């Protein structure tokens, strides 16, 4: 559905994206991750023909976004960052205008607008001025606009920003339900969102792709590993040293909490020394209060991929 080849965009002296290559298949929901200024929005703007690329090419459903931009644009729905809308129009009037503009035939107009009003729960505000709506409603009007012509591809730039937790849940459900039939490219820096919604993640940093895989695989292959918290009454035992010697343990720090010692174990990748820890505790007869393994999260992956300047 989307094919990006050697895409580069330079603004006066700054390279926003550098030689980007990726593909998105039909029906995928792809999360586009990266810190602010990584080039997510720039890439999306090029895909939607809003900006021309400096070099390289991108196609949507086989149509070049520069050469055959109108054909490409017919097939996509786009929700820009900050959701710009005509504040002087009413919700349903705006959606009718947008549907017309995107070539929805007259006989299907009422149906299409009605559908997206339902889908985005906008029925109760359909006659209100957009300027009078809250941020959450505006966001949903933007989403309804992106969906109104039933596009094959949705490009959503931070769709859940500014929404309250209930609305976020609602929008996530909505996007998740769109998958399969439609292709979705969604940028965000809310990480749990990606794990919930997306079938694949593309991590971009400083204009380059750092990783492109399912969230699961990213976690599995991640180099910095998880950690373990272990609380036990160990008396004066040199427990830290004993724990340190276990296979898979990188280092140990100790805190005191009353009679109990609280150990933080940093672990190597893909290791789980919990059995060894329990065996050690049993053999030394420590009273164990808590043992918790903290799995690496997407946040760890994200930090690792985008923190270093390498």
């Amino acid at each position: 559905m989307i094919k990006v080849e050697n895409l580069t965009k330079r603004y006066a002296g700054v390279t926003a994206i550098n030689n980007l290559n990726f593909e998105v298949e039909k029906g995928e929901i792809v999360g586009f991750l990266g810190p602010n200024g990584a080039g997510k929005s720039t890439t999306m703007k090029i895909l939607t023909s809003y900006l021309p690329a400096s070099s390289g090419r991108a196609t949507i459903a086989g149509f070049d976004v520069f050469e055959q931009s109108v054909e490409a644009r017919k097939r996509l729905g786009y929700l820009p960052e900050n959701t710009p809308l005509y504040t002087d129009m009413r919700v349903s009037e705006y959606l009718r205008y947008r549907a017309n503009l995107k070539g929805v035939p007259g006989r299907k107009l009422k149906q299409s607008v009605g559908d997206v009003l339902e889908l985005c729960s906008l029925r109760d505000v359909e006659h209100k001025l957009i300027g009078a709506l809250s941020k959450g409603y505006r966001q949903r009007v933007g989403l309804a606009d992106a969906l109104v012509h039933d596009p094959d591809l949705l490009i959503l730039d931070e769709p859940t920003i500014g929404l309250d937790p209930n609305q976020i849940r609602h929008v996530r459900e909505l996007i998740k339900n769109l998958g399969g039939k439609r292709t979705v490219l969604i940028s965000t820096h809310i990480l749990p969102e990606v794990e919930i919604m997306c079938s694949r993640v593309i991590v971009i940093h400083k204009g380059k792709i750092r990783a492109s895989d399912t969230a699961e695989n990213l976690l599995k292959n991640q180099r910095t590993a998880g950690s373990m918290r272990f609380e036990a009454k160990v008396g004066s035992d040199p427990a830290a040293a004993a724990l340190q010697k276990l296979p898979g343990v990188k280092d140990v720090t100790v805190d005191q909490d009353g009679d109990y010692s609280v150990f933080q174990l940093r672990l190597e990748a893909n290791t789980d020394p919990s059995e060894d820890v329990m065996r050690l505790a049993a053999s030394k007869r420590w009273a164990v209060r808590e043992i918790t393994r903290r799995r690496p999260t997407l946040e760890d992956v994200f930090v690792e991929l985008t923190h270093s300047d390498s």
Partner: protein
Amino acid sequence: MKTFLTLFSRELKSFFYSPIAYVVLFYFLLLAGVNFWYQIQLVNGYPAEVTIVEIVFAQALFWFPFILSFPLITMRVYSEEFRMGTLETLTTAPVKDWQIVLAKFAGVLFFYCILWAPSFLSFATFQYITGHNAANAAGAYLTTFLLLFLMGMFFCSIGLLASALTKDQIIAATISFSVILLCVFLPFLPTVMNITSPAIKEIFAYFSPVQHMEDFSKGIIDSRPVVWYLSMTALMTYLTLQVFQFRKWKA
């Protein structure tokens, strides 16, 4: 065509969403009415050698509101899209840039015609009530409004170009007001500077809207101003398209 009509009707409606349309309409109607009434009074007082149409459109009371109306109706058109960021939703819909530029031009021009509709009617009413011709012939009446339309095209296109240059409405209005003011009053330069050379005077007269109005309100159709206004409108609109694309791609 459907795309163009959709854009056009949004553009035209947007005038009436804001109070600007009503304010401009009110003030224009008021001044045009006062001007019309005042000139009738004047002509009533003593035998005149000019027609109502000729005298009405020769007055400062006509020219000043006329010049001022263009910045007011055009300043918002592009600036507002830039400022609110709606340029992005507009241009990522499957529409071509020239469709946007032409639709905006057509929308503004149509509103300008709405501004003039009451005046058009007041002359008709005059003829109906008094039984006298407001102009020296029906043709003169039409040529006057033809010129108003042609000048409107040119000055609207200047205003739109100014609006496409900036996201600040006030700056857009200032630019277009200055340029249109120059277009109207620069041709008086030879008079002001006491230049007697007939060649120079004639050149300036070619470009003088005031001179054009004097001719057209008598019913004289001169093809030179027609070509001048049409070609300048085309040029301004072409430049607007270029500026629009440049600003979009720079964004």
